[in-house]
């Protein structure tokens, strides 16, 4: 859900002005996001297990070692990691009511996320050019499904953060809105962490023992 509602957007709570009794002192939306992330672990878990189960079982090429480009993907991975850094700065800014900085860093996150996606589009089209498609072999089937699902996650994150950014121009945002940024940030960091796992399992492990 795109949680970019306005300041009184605690509308899911029945009693905005009064009390707000909560059993834990954690915001509902944050618990929701943590529960979703637990579930999302299982989604990616199932996809990663599928990749591992079928690893090395492709009947025809291209095989991973033929097409994967470690230096290129290292760059895109670095860009995605840096976007997490900017995400932290964006949250810190809005917590301190520094809206101009918040906008700058959020724009930076979206930009870096988009650069990562650009790398992925390039990688996918390059793979198709050299004959690796969804239908070519099990590597193509599992690789595109796993990294494609991750790409969709990044895309949703970019749209979500852009929506928050636009909202900050539509209505005044203050440190009271930090929780919206924080929840989106949780999602963003999670998607980054998943990429670290994918980068390790799909890319790095493939080249163990291969001379550089």
């Amino acid at each position, binding site marked *: 859900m795109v949680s970019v509602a306005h300041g009184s957007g605690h509308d899911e709570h029945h009693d905005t002005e009064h*009390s707000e009794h909560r059993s834990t002192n954690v915001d509902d939306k944050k618990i929701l996001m943590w529960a979703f992330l637990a579930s999302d672990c*299982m*989604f990616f878990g199932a*996809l990663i297990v599928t990749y591992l189960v079928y690893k090395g079982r492709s009947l025809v090429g291209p095989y991973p070692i033929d097409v994967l480009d470690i230096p290129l993907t290292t760059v895109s991975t670095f860009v995605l990691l840096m976007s997490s850094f900017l995400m932290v700065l964006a949250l810190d800014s809005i917590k301190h009511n520094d809206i101009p900085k918040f906008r700058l860093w959020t724009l930076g996150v979206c930009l870096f996320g988009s650069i990562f996606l650009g790398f992925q589009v390039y990688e996918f089209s390059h793979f198709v050019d050299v004959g690796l498609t*969804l*239908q070519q072999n099990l590597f193509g089937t599992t690789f595109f499904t796993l990294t494609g699902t991750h790409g969709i996650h990044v895309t949703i994150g970019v749209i979500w953060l852009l929506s928050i950014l636009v909202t900050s121009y539509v209505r005044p945002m203050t440190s009271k809105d930090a929780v919206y940024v924080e929840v989106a940030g949780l999602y963003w960091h999670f998607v980054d962490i998943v990429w670290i796992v994918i980068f390790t399992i799909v890319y790095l492990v493939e080249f163990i023992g291969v001379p550089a």
Partner: protein
Amino acid sequence: MAISRKPASQAPDFSGGLFKRPTTSKGLVSWLTTIDHKRIGILYFLSGIFFFVIGGLEALVIRTQLTRSGLNLISPDLYNQMFTMHGTTMIFLAVMPMSAGFFNYLTPLMIGARDVAFPRLNSFSYWTFFFGAITLNASWFLGGAPDTGWFGYSPLTSTTYSPGLAVDFWVFGLQMLGLASLLAGFNFIVTIINMRAPGMTMFKMPAFVWMTLVVQFLVILAFPAITIALVELMMDRQFGTGFFNPAMGGMPIYWQHLFWVFGHPEVYILILPAMGIVSEVLPTFSRKPLFGYPVVVMSGALIGLMGFAVWSHHMFTTGMGAVANAAFAATTMTIAIPTGVKIFNWIGTLWGGKIRLTTPMLFALGFIFMFTVGGVSGVMHSAAPADAQQQDTYFVVAHFHYVLIGGSIFGLFSGFYYWSPMVTGRMLSEKWGKIVFWVMFWGFNITFFPMHFAGLNGQARRTHSYSQELGLDNLNTLATIGSYILALGVGIFIVHVIRDVISGEKVSEDPWDARTIEWRLPLPTPVYNFDKIPNITHRDQHWFDKHPDLAHSHEHGADGAAHADDDGHSHEDEHGIHLPGQSWYPFVMSFGLFVVVFGGLYSSLLMVIVGFVITFIGCYAWAFEGIGGTHVKPKGQSWYQ
């Protein structure tokens, strides 16, 4: 109604939404846009009952075909569609939504909350379920229903063996149902963790709420496996990938693993709500606290945890090897322990109690008896060598119907008879309720007990007919007669419930001398639930408030002399209680997804795009529509009505 409604004038209007948030409480619009957990609960339960009848009719067709050997009343192809849709319907469209009805209606009331944490998300869950159910059943009218079994084993589901759209309807329908369950799961986890009334620690929650919580964790952790499995199947069918295609090196057995990693926790998703219900009904009608409450709770949690470690017992005959078979046999036998512990706890609750044999109590006792029978045959399957004999026979059919009808359905019926006065403010006839119980009890046992023998004597399940030489004609005829008796029981149930809901005896407060705080409320439940959020000092708070002397001696875990603060936490001020406005957007978003799904089914890119646009508009309008709503003022202590 002794309440006054006035618009929430001070609610800021950002008018980002296309429509104003409706506030009507009558008519079709009020149901389409409702975000009230009680109404959503009612919608879930009625949908569940509707599909329970549909699934039941499919079962009657199956049983009629099997009355004697060698019959050909329906074609083998139609028979396959029948048992596939019977299983899928009963699991996803009958038992799960009926359970969801109880979760929705009761959880906020039992923990002393005004609603769930995310009411619009709750509405979105329901409508997504609704359109998923339509998608699944639309296949009947659009080229034939799926015929691959509810488990959809590969490679039977490949385009080679299942051309046509039936399997695609199944895939897309289940994805929508899964989405609905997942979102509801997140919502209820937040609600239970964060919205308990002051003083209600986790171990003062009613056992039913605990079981609800465990089920939601099972849902959010188990459904991803089937979602991914279905995505992979969809990719195979739509885009020619090789996940389950042996020609490309894919392994059909891998589908079974993914499916049962979901499928076994799903079994506990179906039974734990009924266990929770029975854990509320038995104490009330024994006039005793639940025996060993912490043990019941922890057994439930342990069952949930271990439910993830037993999936391969569905696959003992697939040649996994001795080590895997032995390991999964061991975990399966172990999971019987917490389940058995619960049975002893329920018997302990009855022991020495002042038992009242009301209709809910009869169903709860029936649950214990039949669930135990199903549990015992379940332990028999857990021995892998024995299972090799039982696999795919009617013995297995007998087993899981004992736990799913004798267990889940009887538990849910018990809960229905127990809590329906809260919903309607009218009592259900005890006389007819007991008749329903006995007719269903005998109908059920006559249907399924003979199947144990038919199965051990070699009758295979999922087959259209059987040979006369098996000598099983009479057992099958008996089972068919039983199924009609069971159907008669359900028929009486529907007729007498409709009659009693319209003209039953009115009741305005706790008719059962119950124990938990939802019974503090006047009947039927006021729209705002509690006028004052109660303070909780005891488990079984309502019982304690009524009988401070009696309750105290039973409750060792209670906080000594602390008395309930009768004033509770007032959420009122001069504005009254704020009820948020209803919302169109959950419905709009679910409808958008429905359009996407049909676009996908008929390969219409245009429809897919239109559907996503509708979904997106709904999503953003939802985010910006503002609070809206009304303020409701309970007048003094005179309750609703």
